[in-house]
Protein backbone atom coordinates (compact mmCIF):
# COMPACT_ATOMS: atom_id res chain seq x y z
CA UNK A 1 0.00 0.00 0.00
CA UNK A 2 2.99 2.32 0.57
CA UNK A 3 3.90 1.50 -2.98
CA UNK A 4 0.52 2.66 -4.28
CA UNK A 5 0.81 5.83 -2.26
CA UNK A 6 4.14 6.58 -3.87
CA UNK A 7 2.92 5.80 -7.35
CA UNK A 8 0.06 8.20 -6.84
CA UNK A 9 2.24 10.66 -5.00
CA UNK A 10 5.07 11.11 -7.44
CA UNK A 11 3.10 12.64 -10.31
CA UNK A 12 1.02 14.79 -7.99
CA UNK A 13 4.17 16.14 -6.37
CA UNK A 14 5.61 16.92 -9.80
CA UNK A 15 2.35 18.56 -10.85
CA UNK A 16 2.22 20.66 -7.70
CA UNK A 17 5.80 21.64 -8.21
CA UNK A 18 5.05 22.81 -11.73
CA UNK A 19 2.03 24.83 -10.60
CA UNK A 20 4.00 26.53 -7.84
CA UNK A 21 6.81 27.11 -10.36
CA UNK A 22 4.51 28.83 -12.79
CA UNK A 23 2.51 30.74 -10.19
CA UNK A 24 5.71 32.11 -8.78
CA UNK A 25 5.92 34.15 -11.97
CA UNK A 26 4.34 37.43 -11.02
CA UNK A 27 5.75 37.76 -7.56
CA UNK A 28 9.43 36.99 -7.97
CA UNK A 29 10.88 40.13 -9.49
CA UNK A 30 14.24 41.81 -9.48
CA UNK A 31 13.70 44.93 -7.43
CA UNK A 32 16.84 46.64 -8.63
CA UNK A 33 17.14 50.08 -7.10
CA UNK A 34 18.03 52.67 -9.66
CA UNK A 35 21.47 53.75 -8.61
CA UNK A 36 20.40 56.26 -6.02
CA UNK A 37 22.75 55.78 -3.13
CA UNK A 38 22.82 59.20 -1.54
CA UNK A 39 20.48 59.78 1.36
CA UNK A 40 18.09 62.58 0.87
CA UNK A 41 17.88 65.47 1.74
CA UNK A 42 21.62 65.73 2.02
CA UNK A 43 21.84 64.57 -1.58
CA UNK A 44 19.73 67.40 -2.93
CA UNK A 45 21.27 70.84 -3.31
CA UNK A 46 18.11 72.40 -1.87
CA UNK A 47 15.82 70.68 0.64
CA UNK A 48 12.77 70.94 -1.56
CA UNK A 49 9.59 69.77 0.19
CA UNK A 50 7.19 68.37 -2.41
CA UNK A 51 4.39 68.20 0.13
CA UNK A 52 4.72 71.90 0.93
CA UNK A 53 4.19 72.75 -2.75
CA UNK A 54 1.79 70.11 -3.98
CA UNK A 55 0.16 68.95 -0.76
CA UNK A 56 -3.48 69.67 -0.14
CA UNK A 57 -3.24 69.87 3.67
CA UNK A 58 -3.89 73.14 5.45
CA UNK A 59 -1.00 75.52 4.83
CA UNK A 60 0.15 73.59 1.79
CA UNK A 61 -0.14 75.04 -1.67
CA UNK A 62 -1.87 72.27 -3.59
CA UNK A 63 0.01 73.08 -6.79
CA UNK A 64 -0.52 71.08 -9.95
CA UNK A 65 2.41 68.78 -10.72
CA UNK A 66 2.54 70.10 -14.24
CA UNK A 67 3.01 73.67 -13.07
CA UNK A 68 6.66 72.82 -12.56
CA UNK A 69 7.01 69.59 -14.53
CA UNK A 70 5.70 71.51 -17.45
CA UNK A 71 6.24 69.19 -20.40
CA UNK A 72 4.73 66.02 -18.95
CA UNK A 73 1.58 66.15 -21.04
CA UNK A 74 3.19 67.09 -24.33
CA UNK A 75 6.58 65.41 -24.25
CA UNK A 76 8.24 62.15 -23.41
CA UNK A 77 10.07 63.97 -20.63
CA UNK A 78 8.22 65.49 -17.70
CA UNK A 79 10.68 68.37 -17.50
CA UNK A 80 12.48 69.97 -14.57
CA UNK A 81 11.49 73.56 -13.69
CA UNK A 82 13.99 76.21 -14.67
CA UNK A 83 15.60 78.23 -11.91
CA UNK A 84 13.50 81.15 -13.02
CA UNK A 85 10.34 79.16 -12.47
CA UNK A 86 11.33 78.72 -8.84
CA UNK A 87 12.46 82.28 -8.47
CA UNK A 88 9.36 83.58 -10.19
CA UNK A 89 7.33 82.68 -7.13
CA UNK A 90 9.97 82.77 -4.45
CA UNK A 91 10.95 86.35 -5.16
CA UNK A 92 7.68 87.12 -3.43
CA UNK A 93 7.57 84.11 -1.11
CA UNK A 94 10.59 83.99 1.22
CA UNK A 95 9.44 80.61 2.56
CA UNK A 96 8.04 80.68 6.07
CA UNK A 97 9.45 77.34 7.24
CA UNK A 98 13.06 77.51 6.23
CA UNK A 99 13.95 80.65 4.31
CA UNK A 100 17.64 79.77 4.21
CA UNK A 101 16.87 76.93 1.80
CA UNK A 102 14.77 79.23 -0.35
CA UNK A 103 17.55 81.77 -0.30
CA UNK A 104 19.78 79.24 -2.05
CA UNK A 105 17.72 79.74 -5.19
CA UNK A 106 18.87 83.31 -5.40
CA UNK A 107 22.51 82.30 -5.47
CA UNK A 108 21.83 80.03 -8.43
CA UNK A 109 19.96 82.83 -10.16
CA UNK A 110 22.78 85.24 -9.55
CA UNK A 111 25.49 82.80 -10.66
CA UNK A 112 23.30 81.96 -13.62
CA UNK A 113 23.76 78.27 -12.87
CA UNK A 114 21.27 75.43 -12.99
CA UNK A 115 20.40 73.65 -9.76
CA UNK A 116 22.04 70.21 -9.81
CA UNK A 117 19.08 68.21 -8.56
CA UNK A 118 19.70 64.55 -7.75
CA UNK A 119 17.74 62.22 -9.98
CA UNK A 120 15.24 60.08 -8.05
CA UNK A 121 13.15 58.49 -10.78
CA UNK A 122 14.85 56.83 -13.69
CA UNK A 123 13.99 54.04 -16.06
CA UNK A 124 16.78 52.01 -17.60
CA UNK A 125 18.46 53.49 -20.65
CA UNK A 126 16.89 50.92 -22.95
CA UNK A 127 13.33 51.74 -21.93
CA UNK A 128 11.39 54.54 -23.57
CA UNK A 129 8.65 55.97 -21.37
CA UNK A 130 6.64 58.67 -23.14
CA UNK A 131 5.09 60.70 -20.30
CA UNK A 132 2.46 62.36 -22.49
CA UNK A 133 1.00 59.10 -23.70
CA UNK A 134 0.38 58.04 -20.10
CA UNK A 135 -0.90 61.40 -18.90
CA UNK A 136 -3.23 61.64 -21.87
CA UNK A 137 -4.42 58.10 -21.20
CA UNK A 138 -5.72 59.51 -17.93
CA UNK A 139 -3.10 58.17 -15.55
CA UNK A 140 -2.35 60.11 -12.40
CA UNK A 141 1.29 60.97 -11.73
CA UNK A 142 0.88 59.23 -8.39
CA UNK A 143 0.19 55.89 -10.03
CA UNK A 144 3.86 55.61 -10.86
CA UNK A 145 5.57 58.17 -8.68
CA UNK A 146 3.64 57.51 -5.50
CA UNK A 147 1.92 60.08 -3.33
CA UNK A 148 4.62 62.65 -3.97
CA UNK A 149 2.41 65.48 -2.73
CA UNK A 150 2.52 63.92 0.72
CA UNK A 151 6.27 63.42 0.81
CA UNK A 152 8.54 66.03 2.23
CA UNK A 153 11.52 63.89 1.40
CA UNK A 154 11.52 62.10 -1.94
CA UNK A 155 13.19 58.74 -2.09
CA UNK A 156 13.35 56.18 -4.82
CA UNK A 157 12.28 53.61 -2.22
CA UNK A 158 8.93 55.36 -1.86
CA UNK A 159 7.94 55.29 -5.50
CA UNK A 160 5.08 53.11 -6.57
CA UNK A 161 6.67 51.58 -9.63
CA UNK A 162 9.06 48.67 -9.44
CA UNK A 163 12.15 50.40 -10.68
CA UNK A 164 13.58 48.07 -13.28
CA UNK A 165 10.79 45.60 -12.69
CA UNK A 166 9.25 45.31 -16.12
CA UNK A 167 6.47 43.13 -14.79
CA UNK A 168 5.07 46.16 -13.00
CA UNK A 169 4.56 47.90 -16.34
CA UNK A 170 3.20 44.80 -18.01
CA UNK A 171 0.60 44.16 -15.34
CA UNK A 172 -0.91 47.57 -16.05
CA UNK A 173 -0.59 47.31 -19.83
CA UNK A 174 -2.31 43.93 -19.68
CA UNK A 175 -5.41 45.21 -17.87
CA UNK A 176 -8.32 44.56 -20.23
CA UNK A 177 -10.16 47.58 -21.58
CA UNK A 178 -13.92 47.59 -22.20
CA UNK A 179 -13.51 45.52 -25.35
CA UNK A 180 -11.64 42.91 -23.33
CA UNK A 181 -8.37 43.47 -25.14
CA UNK A 182 -5.31 44.63 -23.20
CA UNK A 183 -5.68 48.36 -22.58
CA UNK A 184 -2.14 49.05 -23.76
CA UNK A 185 0.10 47.24 -26.16
CA UNK A 186 2.45 44.59 -24.79
CA UNK A 187 4.48 44.64 -27.98
CA UNK A 188 8.14 44.71 -26.95
CA UNK A 189 9.10 47.32 -29.53
CA UNK A 190 6.65 49.82 -28.05
CA UNK A 191 9.11 50.57 -25.25
CA UNK A 192 12.38 48.95 -26.36
CA UNK A 193 14.06 50.30 -29.49
Amino acid at each position, binding site marked *: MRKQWLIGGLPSVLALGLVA*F*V*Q*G*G*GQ*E*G*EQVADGLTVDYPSGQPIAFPHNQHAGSEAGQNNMDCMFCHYSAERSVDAGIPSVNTCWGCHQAIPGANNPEEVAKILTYVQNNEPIPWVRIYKVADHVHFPHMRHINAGLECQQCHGEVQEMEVLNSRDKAW*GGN*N*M*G*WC*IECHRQPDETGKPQASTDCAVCHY
Partner: protein
Amino acid sequence: MGIATDPTPRGALAHPDVENYDEVNRDVLRALETPGKGWWALLGLMVAGIGVFFGAWGWQLYKGIGVSGLNSPVGWGVYITTFVFWVGIAHSGTLISAILFLFRAPWRQSIYRAAEAMTVFAVMTAGLFPLIHVGRLWHAYWLIPYPNSRFLWPNFKSPLVWDVFAITTYFTVSATFFYLGTIPDIAAARDRATGLRKKFYQVISLGWRGTDQQWHHFGKAYIFLAALAAPLVLSVHSVVSWDFAMTIVPGWHATIFAPYFVAGAIFSGVAMVITLVVPMRKIFGLEAYLTTKHFDAMAKLCLLTSLIVLYAYMSEFFLAWYSGEEIERTAFWNRAFGDYWWATWIMLTCNGLVPIMLWFKRIRHSIPAMFVISIFINIGMWFERYVIVVTSLHHEYEPFAWGIYRPSVTEMCILFGSFCWFGFWFLLFTRLLPPIAIQELKEVMPAPMRRPRTEAH
Protein backbone atom coordinates in the same frame (compact mmCIF):
# COMPACT_ATOMS: atom_id res chain seq x y z
CA MET B 1 16.22 -28.84 -8.87
CA GLY B 2 19.55 -27.09 -8.95
CA ILE B 3 21.08 -25.37 -11.91
CA ALA B 4 21.37 -26.72 -15.40
CA THR B 5 24.52 -25.30 -16.88
CA ASP B 6 25.92 -26.31 -20.21
CA PRO B 7 29.64 -27.00 -20.30
CA THR B 8 31.39 -24.06 -21.81
CA PRO B 9 34.91 -24.49 -23.17
CA ARG B 10 37.16 -21.80 -21.65
CA GLY B 11 38.26 -20.65 -25.06
CA ALA B 12 34.75 -19.36 -25.83
CA LEU B 13 34.76 -17.25 -22.71
CA ALA B 14 35.06 -13.48 -22.86
CA HIS B 15 38.06 -13.46 -20.58
CA PRO B 16 39.80 -16.86 -20.80
CA ASP B 17 42.78 -15.67 -18.77
CA VAL B 18 40.77 -14.69 -15.72
CA GLU B 19 40.54 -17.53 -13.22
CA ASN B 20 37.99 -16.52 -10.62
CA TYR B 21 35.93 -13.70 -9.12
CA ASP B 22 38.48 -12.72 -6.51
CA GLU B 23 41.04 -12.22 -9.24
CA VAL B 24 38.72 -9.76 -10.94
CA ASN B 25 38.41 -7.70 -7.79
CA ARG B 26 42.10 -7.86 -7.21
CA ASP B 27 43.09 -6.80 -10.72
CA VAL B 28 40.53 -4.09 -11.19
CA LEU B 29 40.81 -2.55 -7.77
CA ARG B 30 44.58 -2.51 -8.06
CA ALA B 31 44.07 0.44 -10.33
CA LEU B 32 42.82 2.42 -7.37
CA GLU B 33 46.00 2.05 -5.36
CA THR B 34 48.26 5.02 -4.73
CA PRO B 35 49.10 6.61 -8.08
CA GLY B 36 52.59 6.84 -9.55
CA LYS B 37 54.60 9.86 -10.63
CA GLY B 38 53.32 9.64 -14.19
CA TRP B 39 49.76 10.11 -13.07
CA TRP B 40 50.64 13.14 -10.98
CA ALA B 41 52.60 14.62 -13.88
CA LEU B 42 49.63 14.19 -16.19
CA LEU B 43 47.29 15.66 -13.62
CA GLY B 44 49.62 18.64 -13.25
CA LEU B 45 49.55 19.20 -16.98
CA MET B 46 45.78 19.04 -17.02
CA VAL B 47 45.47 21.52 -14.17
CA ALA B 48 47.79 23.88 -16.01
CA GLY B 49 45.66 23.48 -19.13
CA ILE B 50 42.55 24.28 -17.12
CA GLY B 51 44.32 27.43 -16.01
CA VAL B 52 44.81 28.41 -19.65
CA PHE B 53 41.20 27.53 -20.34
CA PHE B 54 39.65 29.75 -17.71
CA GLY B 55 42.31 32.40 -18.23
CA ALA B 56 41.33 32.75 -21.87
CA TRP B 57 37.65 32.67 -21.00
CA GLY B 58 38.12 35.35 -18.37
CA TRP B 59 39.98 37.53 -20.84
CA GLN B 60 37.13 37.12 -23.28
CA LEU B 61 34.57 38.07 -20.64
CA TYR B 62 36.62 41.11 -19.73
CA LYS B 63 37.18 42.34 -23.27
CA GLY B 64 34.16 41.02 -25.11
CA ILE B 65 33.53 38.17 -27.49
CA GLY B 66 35.52 40.21 -30.00
CA VAL B 67 38.73 38.57 -28.85
CA SER B 68 37.63 35.62 -30.91
CA GLY B 69 38.12 35.68 -34.67
CA LEU B 70 34.40 35.58 -35.29
CA ASN B 71 32.75 38.16 -37.52
CA SER B 72 29.82 38.53 -39.80
CA PRO B 73 29.03 36.43 -41.77
CA VAL B 74 30.85 33.78 -39.73
CA GLY B 75 29.09 34.11 -36.37
CA TRP B 76 30.00 30.62 -35.21
CA GLY B 77 33.45 29.13 -35.30
CA VAL B 78 35.80 27.12 -33.13
CA TYR B 79 33.52 27.32 -30.08
CA ILE B 80 30.51 25.70 -31.71
CA THR B 81 32.80 23.31 -33.59
CA THR B 82 34.29 22.15 -30.33
CA PHE B 83 30.88 22.02 -28.68
CA VAL B 84 29.60 19.64 -31.31
CA PHE B 85 32.85 17.69 -31.16
CA TRP B 86 32.52 17.01 -27.44
CA VAL B 87 28.82 16.25 -27.66
CA GLY B 88 29.75 13.74 -30.32
CA ILE B 89 32.41 12.19 -28.11
CA ALA B 90 29.81 11.90 -25.40
CA HIS B 91 27.76 9.55 -27.50
CA SER B 92 29.60 6.27 -27.66
CA GLY B 93 29.56 5.97 -23.88
CA THR B 94 25.85 5.67 -23.50
CA LEU B 95 25.65 3.83 -26.78
CA ILE B 96 27.98 1.10 -25.53
CA SER B 97 26.47 0.95 -22.08
CA ALA B 98 22.80 1.24 -23.03
CA ILE B 99 22.24 0.03 -26.56
CA LEU B 100 24.83 -2.74 -26.48
CA PHE B 101 23.46 -3.70 -23.09
CA LEU B 102 19.97 -4.03 -24.51
CA PHE B 103 21.36 -6.09 -27.37
CA ARG B 104 23.40 -8.13 -24.92
CA ALA B 105 26.63 -7.55 -26.82
CA PRO B 106 29.17 -9.85 -25.17
CA TRP B 107 32.15 -7.48 -25.42
CA ARG B 108 30.84 -4.38 -23.69
CA GLN B 109 31.49 -5.26 -20.04
CA SER B 110 35.12 -4.37 -19.80
CA ILE B 111 34.97 -1.07 -21.69
CA TYR B 112 31.63 0.43 -20.85
CA ARG B 113 32.66 1.88 -17.47
CA ALA B 114 35.44 3.92 -19.08
CA ALA B 115 33.15 4.81 -21.97
CA GLU B 116 30.43 6.03 -19.63
CA ALA B 117 32.87 8.07 -17.60
CA MET B 118 34.08 9.58 -20.85
CA THR B 119 30.51 10.39 -21.77
CA VAL B 120 29.81 12.22 -18.54
CA PHE B 121 33.00 14.25 -18.68
CA ALA B 122 32.57 14.98 -22.39
CA VAL B 123 29.12 16.41 -21.74
CA MET B 124 30.57 18.41 -18.87
CA THR B 125 33.05 19.84 -21.36
CA ALA B 126 30.59 20.35 -24.18
CA GLY B 127 28.15 22.08 -21.88
CA LEU B 128 30.63 24.88 -21.28
CA PHE B 129 30.90 25.93 -24.90
CA PRO B 130 27.44 27.42 -25.45
CA LEU B 131 28.25 29.56 -22.43
CA ILE B 132 31.65 30.47 -23.78
CA HIS B 133 30.32 31.54 -27.16
CA VAL B 134 27.41 33.79 -26.13
CA GLY B 135 27.97 37.51 -26.22
CA ARG B 136 26.45 38.20 -22.83
CA LEU B 137 27.16 35.30 -20.51
CA TRP B 138 25.55 37.17 -17.64
CA HIS B 139 22.22 36.87 -19.44
CA ALA B 140 22.63 33.30 -20.68
CA TYR B 141 20.30 32.01 -17.96
CA TRP B 142 17.45 33.56 -19.92
CA LEU B 143 17.48 30.37 -21.98
CA ILE B 144 16.27 28.46 -18.95
CA PRO B 145 12.51 28.58 -18.49
CA TYR B 146 12.18 30.08 -15.04
CA PRO B 147 9.36 32.30 -13.83
CA ASN B 148 10.46 35.92 -13.87
CA SER B 149 9.11 39.38 -13.26
CA ARG B 150 8.99 40.03 -17.00
CA PHE B 151 6.48 37.25 -17.71
CA LEU B 152 8.86 36.17 -20.47
CA TRP B 153 9.63 32.61 -21.45
CA PRO B 154 12.22 31.18 -23.81
CA ASN B 155 11.30 30.50 -27.40
CA PHE B 156 10.57 26.80 -27.55
CA LYS B 157 10.66 26.99 -31.33
CA SER B 158 14.37 27.70 -31.21
CA PRO B 159 16.73 24.76 -31.68
CA LEU B 160 19.00 26.34 -29.09
CA VAL B 161 16.34 25.86 -26.44
CA TRP B 162 15.94 22.28 -27.65
CA ASP B 163 19.66 22.01 -27.05
CA VAL B 164 19.34 23.24 -23.51
CA PHE B 165 16.78 20.54 -22.80
CA ALA B 166 18.55 17.80 -24.71
CA ILE B 167 21.97 18.40 -23.21
CA THR B 168 20.78 18.77 -19.62
CA THR B 169 18.63 15.68 -19.96
CA TYR B 170 21.46 13.78 -21.51
CA PHE B 171 23.85 14.81 -18.78
CA THR B 172 21.44 13.93 -15.99
CA VAL B 173 20.51 10.58 -17.42
CA SER B 174 23.99 9.45 -18.42
CA ALA B 175 25.44 10.62 -15.11
CA THR B 176 22.73 8.72 -13.21
CA PHE B 177 23.24 5.67 -15.38
CA PHE B 178 26.97 5.84 -14.83
CA TYR B 179 26.69 6.22 -11.09
CA LEU B 180 24.03 3.58 -10.69
CA GLY B 181 26.08 0.98 -12.54
CA THR B 182 29.09 1.82 -10.38
CA ILE B 183 27.43 1.44 -6.99
CA PRO B 184 28.01 -2.34 -6.59
CA ASP B 185 31.62 -1.93 -7.64
CA ILE B 186 32.10 0.93 -5.23
CA ALA B 187 30.81 -1.43 -2.59
CA ALA B 188 33.41 -3.93 -3.68
CA ALA B 189 36.08 -1.25 -3.43
CA ARG B 190 34.73 -0.27 -0.03
CA ASP B 191 35.11 -3.84 1.21
CA ARG B 192 38.81 -3.87 0.35
CA ALA B 193 39.76 -0.28 1.03
CA THR B 194 40.98 1.11 4.34
CA GLY B 195 41.10 4.46 6.09
CA LEU B 196 39.93 7.60 4.34
CA ARG B 197 39.17 5.85 1.09
CA LYS B 198 36.94 3.39 2.98
CA LYS B 199 34.98 6.29 4.47
CA PHE B 200 34.64 7.84 1.01
CA TYR B 201 33.44 4.61 -0.59
CA GLN B 202 31.12 3.90 2.32
CA VAL B 203 29.35 7.17 1.62
CA ILE B 204 29.10 6.90 -2.16
CA SER B 205 28.24 3.20 -2.16
CA LEU B 206 25.07 4.22 -0.35
CA GLY B 207 25.39 1.14 1.80
CA TRP B 208 25.09 -1.33 -1.04
CA ARG B 209 25.25 -4.84 0.19
CA GLY B 210 24.37 -6.96 -2.81
CA THR B 211 21.35 -8.62 -1.24
CA ASP B 212 18.99 -10.53 -3.51
CA GLN B 213 16.39 -7.82 -3.10
CA GLN B 214 18.78 -5.02 -4.10
CA TRP B 215 20.04 -6.97 -7.11
CA HIS B 216 16.49 -7.68 -8.13
CA HIS B 217 15.39 -4.04 -8.36
CA PHE B 218 18.79 -2.92 -9.50
CA GLY B 219 18.62 -5.16 -12.55
CA LYS B 220 15.19 -3.90 -13.52
CA ALA B 221 16.04 -0.26 -12.94
CA TYR B 222 19.17 -0.69 -15.00
CA ILE B 223 17.22 -2.12 -17.90
CA PHE B 224 14.67 0.69 -17.83
CA LEU B 225 17.37 3.33 -17.65
CA ALA B 226 19.07 1.67 -20.59
CA ALA B 227 15.77 1.64 -22.45
CA LEU B 228 15.32 5.34 -21.77
CA ALA B 229 18.91 6.21 -22.56
CA ALA B 230 18.94 4.41 -25.90
CA PRO B 231 16.51 6.76 -27.71
CA LEU B 232 18.05 9.65 -25.83
CA VAL B 233 21.45 8.97 -27.33
CA LEU B 234 19.98 9.13 -30.79
CA SER B 235 17.85 12.17 -30.02
CA VAL B 236 20.56 14.33 -28.47
CA HIS B 237 22.82 14.47 -31.45
CA SER B 238 19.82 14.76 -33.74
CA VAL B 239 18.83 17.87 -31.81
CA VAL B 240 22.37 19.18 -32.05
CA SER B 241 22.32 18.53 -35.77
CA TRP B 242 19.06 20.45 -36.03
CA ASP B 243 20.84 23.54 -34.75
CA PHE B 244 22.13 23.49 -38.28
CA ALA B 245 19.51 21.59 -40.24
CA MET B 246 16.67 23.82 -39.04
CA THR B 247 18.28 26.87 -40.58
CA ILE B 248 18.22 27.85 -44.25
CA VAL B 249 21.99 28.08 -44.57
CA PRO B 250 23.23 26.22 -47.65
CA GLY B 251 25.34 23.34 -46.34
CA TRP B 252 23.37 23.19 -43.11
CA HIS B 253 19.82 22.87 -44.35
CA ALA B 254 19.84 19.13 -45.06
CA THR B 255 17.41 16.40 -44.01
CA ILE B 256 20.26 13.92 -43.81
CA PHE B 257 21.80 15.74 -40.87
CA ALA B 258 20.28 13.86 -37.93
CA PRO B 259 21.37 10.34 -38.90
CA TYR B 260 24.59 11.72 -40.34
CA PHE B 261 25.47 13.45 -37.07
CA VAL B 262 24.49 10.48 -34.92
CA ALA B 263 26.71 8.19 -36.97
CA GLY B 264 29.50 10.72 -36.78
CA ALA B 265 29.06 11.00 -33.04
CA ILE B 266 29.34 7.26 -32.52
CA PHE B 267 32.29 7.21 -34.88
CA SER B 268 34.19 9.85 -32.96
CA GLY B 269 33.03 8.50 -29.62
CA VAL B 270 34.29 4.98 -30.20
CA ALA B 271 37.54 6.39 -31.52
CA MET B 272 37.93 8.41 -28.35
CA VAL B 273 37.21 5.32 -26.24
CA ILE B 274 40.03 3.52 -28.01
CA THR B 275 42.30 6.50 -27.50
CA LEU B 276 41.54 6.40 -23.78
CA VAL B 277 41.53 2.69 -22.99
CA VAL B 278 44.76 1.81 -24.80
CA PRO B 279 46.96 3.68 -22.34
CA MET B 280 44.68 2.72 -19.44
CA ARG B 281 45.07 -0.93 -20.33
CA LYS B 282 48.84 -0.61 -20.31
CA ILE B 283 49.17 1.48 -17.17
CA PHE B 284 46.85 -0.63 -15.03
CA GLY B 285 47.81 -3.96 -16.55
CA LEU B 286 44.28 -4.84 -17.62
CA GLU B 287 45.38 -6.79 -20.69
CA ALA B 288 43.38 -9.77 -19.48
CA TYR B 289 40.18 -7.76 -19.53
CA LEU B 290 40.70 -5.56 -22.59
CA THR B 291 41.56 -8.20 -25.14
CA THR B 292 41.93 -7.88 -28.89
CA LYS B 293 38.33 -9.13 -29.02
CA HIS B 294 37.19 -5.82 -27.62
CA PHE B 295 39.36 -3.73 -29.89
CA ASP B 296 38.25 -5.80 -32.83
CA ALA B 297 34.64 -5.15 -31.98
CA MET B 298 35.22 -1.42 -31.53
CA ALA B 299 37.20 -1.28 -34.74
CA LYS B 300 34.29 -2.84 -36.60
CA LEU B 301 31.95 -0.28 -35.07
CA CYS B 302 34.32 2.47 -36.23
CA LEU B 303 34.47 0.97 -39.69
CA LEU B 304 30.70 0.81 -39.98
CA THR B 305 30.12 4.36 -38.79
CA SER B 306 32.96 5.69 -40.90
CA LEU B 307 31.27 4.18 -43.94
CA ILE B 308 27.98 5.83 -42.97
CA VAL B 309 29.72 9.18 -42.51
CA LEU B 310 31.57 8.86 -45.76
CA TYR B 311 28.30 8.05 -47.47
CA ALA B 312 26.81 11.18 -45.94
CA TYR B 313 29.63 13.33 -47.29
CA MET B 314 29.28 11.87 -50.71
CA SER B 315 25.51 12.19 -50.86
CA GLU B 316 25.75 15.82 -49.73
CA PHE B 317 28.11 16.62 -52.58
CA PHE B 318 26.12 14.54 -55.04
CA LEU B 319 22.80 16.10 -54.15
CA ALA B 320 24.30 19.57 -54.27
CA TRP B 321 25.28 18.88 -57.83
CA TYR B 322 22.19 16.90 -58.75
CA SER B 323 19.78 19.50 -57.37
CA GLY B 324 21.06 21.97 -59.96
CA GLU B 325 20.45 24.59 -57.29
CA GLU B 326 23.06 27.27 -57.93
CA ILE B 327 23.46 28.37 -54.33
CA GLU B 328 23.77 24.82 -53.01
CA ARG B 329 26.27 23.99 -55.73
CA THR B 330 28.41 27.02 -54.99
CA ALA B 331 28.36 26.18 -51.30
CA PHE B 332 29.69 22.67 -51.82
CA TRP B 333 32.10 23.59 -54.56
CA ASN B 334 33.45 26.18 -52.16
CA ARG B 335 33.60 23.55 -49.44
CA ALA B 336 35.85 21.30 -51.48
CA PHE B 337 37.92 23.83 -53.39
CA GLY B 338 37.31 27.17 -51.69
CA ASP B 339 39.22 29.02 -49.00
CA TYR B 340 38.85 26.14 -46.55
CA TRP B 341 39.67 23.27 -48.91
CA TRP B 342 42.41 22.06 -46.55
CA ALA B 343 39.96 21.52 -43.69
CA THR B 344 37.65 19.58 -45.96
CA TRP B 345 40.43 17.35 -47.21
CA ILE B 346 41.74 16.69 -43.71
CA MET B 347 38.21 15.65 -42.85
CA LEU B 348 37.85 13.35 -45.84
CA THR B 349 41.25 11.78 -45.29
CA CYS B 350 40.91 11.13 -41.59
CA ASN B 351 37.28 10.03 -41.63
CA GLY B 352 37.04 8.38 -45.02
CA LEU B 353 40.42 7.04 -46.08
CA VAL B 354 42.29 6.16 -42.89
CA PRO B 355 39.50 3.92 -41.50
CA ILE B 356 39.74 1.79 -44.67
CA MET B 357 42.68 0.15 -42.93
CA LEU B 358 40.23 -1.28 -40.42
CA TRP B 359 39.12 -3.73 -43.07
CA PHE B 360 42.27 -5.71 -42.27
CA LYS B 361 42.21 -8.03 -39.31
CA ARG B 362 45.91 -7.59 -38.67
CA ILE B 363 45.43 -3.89 -38.16
CA ARG B 364 42.29 -4.38 -36.08
CA HIS B 365 44.28 -6.66 -33.81
CA SER B 366 47.29 -4.38 -33.49
CA ILE B 367 46.72 -2.19 -30.45
CA PRO B 368 49.27 0.49 -31.47
CA ALA B 369 47.75 0.74 -34.94
CA MET B 370 44.31 1.13 -33.44
CA PHE B 371 45.62 3.84 -31.15
CA VAL B 372 47.11 5.84 -34.04
CA ILE B 373 44.04 5.42 -36.22
CA SER B 374 41.76 6.50 -33.40
CA ILE B 375 43.78 9.71 -33.03
CA PHE B 376 43.38 10.38 -36.74
CA ILE B 377 39.66 9.89 -36.44
CA ASN B 378 39.44 12.32 -33.52
CA ILE B 379 41.22 14.97 -35.55
CA GLY B 380 39.11 14.24 -38.60
CA MET B 381 35.87 14.53 -36.69
CA TRP B 382 36.83 17.89 -35.19
CA PHE B 383 37.52 19.15 -38.68
CA GLU B 384 34.24 17.72 -39.93
CA ARG B 385 32.40 20.04 -37.57
CA TYR B 386 34.73 22.91 -38.45
CA VAL B 387 34.00 22.41 -42.12
CA ILE B 388 30.26 22.25 -41.58
CA VAL B 389 30.16 25.33 -39.37
CA VAL B 390 32.62 27.63 -41.07
CA THR B 391 32.55 26.85 -44.77
CA SER B 392 28.77 26.98 -44.85
CA LEU B 393 28.64 30.35 -43.14
CA HIS B 394 31.37 32.21 -44.92
CA HIS B 395 29.79 31.79 -48.36
CA GLU B 396 26.06 32.18 -47.95
CA TYR B 397 23.24 33.59 -50.05
CA GLU B 398 24.52 37.14 -50.36
CA PRO B 399 27.76 37.10 -52.40
CA PHE B 400 28.56 40.68 -51.50
CA ALA B 401 28.57 39.72 -47.82
CA TRP B 402 30.92 36.79 -48.17
CA GLY B 403 33.74 36.81 -45.66
CA ILE B 404 36.65 34.96 -44.13
CA TYR B 405 37.10 33.68 -40.60
CA ARG B 406 40.43 33.20 -38.85
CA PRO B 407 40.40 31.62 -35.40
CA SER B 408 42.12 33.73 -32.77
CA VAL B 409 44.67 32.71 -30.15
CA THR B 410 42.01 32.95 -27.46
CA GLU B 411 39.86 30.44 -29.29
CA MET B 412 42.81 28.08 -29.63
CA CYS B 413 43.63 28.36 -25.92
CA ILE B 414 40.05 27.49 -25.06
CA LEU B 415 40.06 24.58 -27.49
CA PHE B 416 43.27 23.23 -25.94
CA GLY B 417 42.04 23.91 -22.43
CA SER B 418 38.86 21.96 -23.03
CA PHE B 419 40.91 18.81 -23.60
CA CYS B 420 42.71 19.37 -20.30
CA TRP B 421 39.44 19.98 -18.51
CA PHE B 422 38.19 16.67 -19.87
CA GLY B 423 41.44 14.85 -19.12
CA PHE B 424 41.46 16.18 -15.57
CA TRP B 425 38.17 14.53 -14.73
CA PHE B 426 39.06 11.31 -16.52
CA LEU B 427 42.31 11.02 -14.58
CA LEU B 428 40.45 11.47 -11.31
CA PHE B 429 38.00 8.80 -12.43
CA THR B 430 40.72 6.22 -13.10
CA ARG B 431 41.97 6.62 -9.56
CA LEU B 432 38.73 6.89 -7.65
CA LEU B 433 36.30 4.49 -9.33
CA PRO B 434 36.79 0.96 -10.60
CA PRO B 435 37.64 1.60 -14.24
CA ILE B 436 36.12 -1.76 -15.25
CA ALA B 437 32.70 -3.07 -14.31
CA ILE B 438 33.55 -5.77 -11.79
CA GLN B 439 30.10 -7.19 -11.25
CA GLU B 440 29.26 -7.36 -14.95
CA LEU B 441 32.53 -9.11 -15.67
CA LYS B 442 31.53 -11.74 -13.17
CA GLU B 443 28.20 -12.14 -14.94
CA VAL B 444 29.96 -13.32 -18.10
CA MET B 445 32.36 -15.56 -16.20
CA PRO B 446 31.45 -19.15 -15.41
CA ALA B 447 30.04 -19.40 -11.90
CA PRO B 448 32.03 -21.63 -9.53
CA MET B 449 30.37 -25.04 -9.20
CA ARG B 450 30.95 -27.76 -6.64
CA ARG B 451 29.61 -30.51 -8.88
CA PRO B 452 31.43 -31.07 -12.20
CA ARG B 453 29.76 -29.05 -14.97
CA THR B 454 28.99 -31.92 -17.28
CA GLU B 455 26.72 -33.49 -14.67
CA ALA B 456 23.34 -31.92 -14.99
CA HIS B 457 20.21 -32.98 -13.11
